């Protein structure tokens, strides 16, 4: 195991301290992450070729250049954690457990695809991987919802919700921020800033290009997203934060080498020079390779072997996939509903198709929440009220203790100045417990659940 000091990799926003700058790297981890980065890049090379050969159709968004983000993050995510991302989803799909075969086959549209060829490039799913999403920004509130499920189930998991720099301007992102903060959700918002939307540079689409600050009242961390070790550290830091203090925003500063999608040559809105400079100076794989060699965790030969093996394996996979078939026409009307109610589905000219469920022969099954998992825990406003109640009880306890220490009466735990019982306050959500009576001033916030420090970003008016 070697120790290594990170440089220029983080900027903090509303955080007392960031991730540690000294990181450990074992030979095992180094080789694993290196291999994964090489794999996900190679997968894209294969996809690129298959697209050009017209085996893949429609949209196809490549991840080349951004590999360190997915690999670094997945290096520390655990089985219980979940991920949701946008349409640039290949690397994520693979790292979240879908085989390269299942992934590429999906893009080719054959039956062996992880969505049986019905979803295509943007719609791949796995265990705790809630997919790509073709609607810019739509996955972000869904991610907050998944985080709410983690909180509700108390399973200790966090949700990573990824979105691009372009998506960061979507209103629904801000709605998700607000609710995640209010409810203290274990959500890690990750902006993969590759510096362009669909042909639009960040300066043309975002009024504030410091994407790690855009949570405003949510702490943020800027990360050099082309350094896999920085990403890994930042992610561990973010997981700890999300579990203990609620949401956090990570900006992974990175770059995409290819066009936005296969139909974009990627040269109309940026110079070839710009792309070339990043490729030579900041390539995530190249720079990690150098780090590994410098630390003597592996030698050149070993790494070359990995490269060669990955290349060979994927070539074989790609070849094999091309022999696979699409699903039969009977699946046109399959799996529209998990519990279908109308056996006949309307075809182009009449109700001549039969619905069927093939979910069971696919990689996953429709999972229903078993009654044992349904809990009576407060969420949303109820969670808020519970937190208020807890805070109020703690304050009573403190006062009582203080009073006792001074030898005064403990007032039976009530502290209403005018002697009203606390339940006199009408401002309680349904089902909530009574809490302290309010002052005539507009009410102050109780601490949101699990949030130890109040937000700071708002406390600095200049004059």
């Amino acid at each position, binding site marked *: 195991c070697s120790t290594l000091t990170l440089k220029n990799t983080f900027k903090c926003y509303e955080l007392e301290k960031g991730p540690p700058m000294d990181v450990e790297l074992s030979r095992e981890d180094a080789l694993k992450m290196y291999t994964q980065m090489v794999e996900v890049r190679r997968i894209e090379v294969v996809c690129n070729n298959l697209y050009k050969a017209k085996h893949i159709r429609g949209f196809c968004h490549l991840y080349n250049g951004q590999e360190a983000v997915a690999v670094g993050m997945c290096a520390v995510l655990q089985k219980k954690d979940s991920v949701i991302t946008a349409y640039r989803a290949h690397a994520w799909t693979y790292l979240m457990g879908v085989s390269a075969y299942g992934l590429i086959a999906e893009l080719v549209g054959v039956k062996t695809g992880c969505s049986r060829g*019905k979803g295509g490039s943007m719609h791949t799913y796995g265990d705790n991987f809630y*997919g790509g999403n073709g609607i810019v920004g739509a996955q972000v509130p869904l991610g907050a919802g998944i985080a709410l499920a983690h909180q509700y189930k108390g399973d200790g998991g966090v949700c990573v919700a990824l979105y691009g720099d372009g998506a960061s301007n979507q209103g629904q992102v801000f709605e998700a921020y607000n609710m995640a903060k209010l409810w203290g959700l274990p959500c890690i918002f990750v902006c993969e800033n590759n510096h362009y939307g669909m042909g639009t540079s960040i300066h043309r689409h975002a009024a504030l290009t410091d994407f790690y600050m855009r949570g405003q009242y949510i702490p943020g961390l800027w990360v050099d997203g082309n350094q896999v070790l920085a990403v890994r550290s930042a992610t561990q830091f973010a997981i700890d934060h999300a579990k203990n203090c609620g949401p956090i925003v990570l900006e992974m500063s990175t770059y995409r080498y290819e066009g936005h999608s296969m139909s974009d040559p990627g040269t109309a809105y940026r110079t070839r020079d710009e792309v070339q400079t990043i490729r030579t100076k900041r390539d995530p794989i190249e720079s990690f390779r150098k780090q590994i060699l410098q630390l003597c965790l592996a030698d050149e030969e070993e790494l070359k072997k990995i490269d060669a093996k990955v290349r060979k394996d994927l070539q074989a996979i790609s070849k094999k996939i091309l022999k696979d078939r699409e699903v039969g026409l009977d699946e046109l009307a399959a799996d529209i509903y998990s519990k279908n109610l109308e056996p006949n589905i309307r075809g182009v000219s009449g109700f001549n198709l039969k619905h069927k469920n093939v979910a069971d022969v696919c990689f996953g099954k429709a999972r229903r929440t078993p009654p044992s998992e349904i809990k009576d825990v407060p969420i949303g406003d109820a969670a808020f009220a519970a937190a208020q109640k807890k805070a109020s009880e703690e304050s009573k306890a403190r006062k009582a203790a203080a009073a006792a220490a001074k030898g005064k009466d403990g007032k039976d735990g009530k502290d209403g100045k005018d002697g009203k019982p606390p339940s006199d306050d009408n401002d309680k959500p349904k089902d909530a417990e009574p809490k302290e009576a309010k002052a005539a001033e507009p009410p102050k916030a109780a601490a949101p659940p699990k949030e130890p420090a109040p937000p700071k970003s708002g406390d600095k008016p200049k004059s």
Partner: protein
Amino acid sequence: MNDRSVINSAAKTFYMSAGAVNVPIVFRGPNGASAGVAAQHSQCFAAWYAHCPGLKVVSPYDTEDARGLLKSAIRDPDPVVVLENELMYGVAFPVDEKVTDVDFLVPLGKAKIMRPGKDITIVAHSKAVETALLSAAELAKKGIEAEVINLRSIRPLDMQTIFTSVRKTHHLITVENGWPQHGVGAEICARFMEDPAFFELDAPVWRCCGVDVPMPYAKTLELNALPREPDVTAAALKVLGKK
């Protein structure tokens, strides 16, 4: 959460994932016109949502519907849109004891015959069921027995119940408070065109719908913007050739 999210994220995911990821979510809320709330707060979304495969859409009328359909929606593994009517929130209906049972469910996708009849079928959903029932009572006075069908579900549409009824009555009108174009009645008309039940009809199907305007605020206009009992009764008589 806007309409596109309902469709794109909830309705399509099960299909796109080839059955790997189901989306057991219920969207519920007031739908259609309330009283005096004008155009922006008065719109029936039944046809919009029901246009989209992957969603189930229900539109309860009375207490039994509201309880039974919502409970079924919650227990269902697919995304269900429950379109409630604000004006019905305050209306109490007598209910059978069984309705209060914790396991009382109203099956999704099945219509209910609210009143049997042999002369004409009146199909409606949500608050329009009330209008249909009032009209049936009025028609009864003229010796016409109308069969009133409460759709309950808009997607899937329980056409079998309607076809069966029409095989008996040979006449059909639809009543809805939503707009006509591409509405619920329109689909029922189209289904008849495409089914042998078409030849059971002794007259074309007729639609009573919300007037094709945004909902006005002024009381008289508002009242006249939705089908009322006399409108439905007149339509029924016309379809029956009695006027």
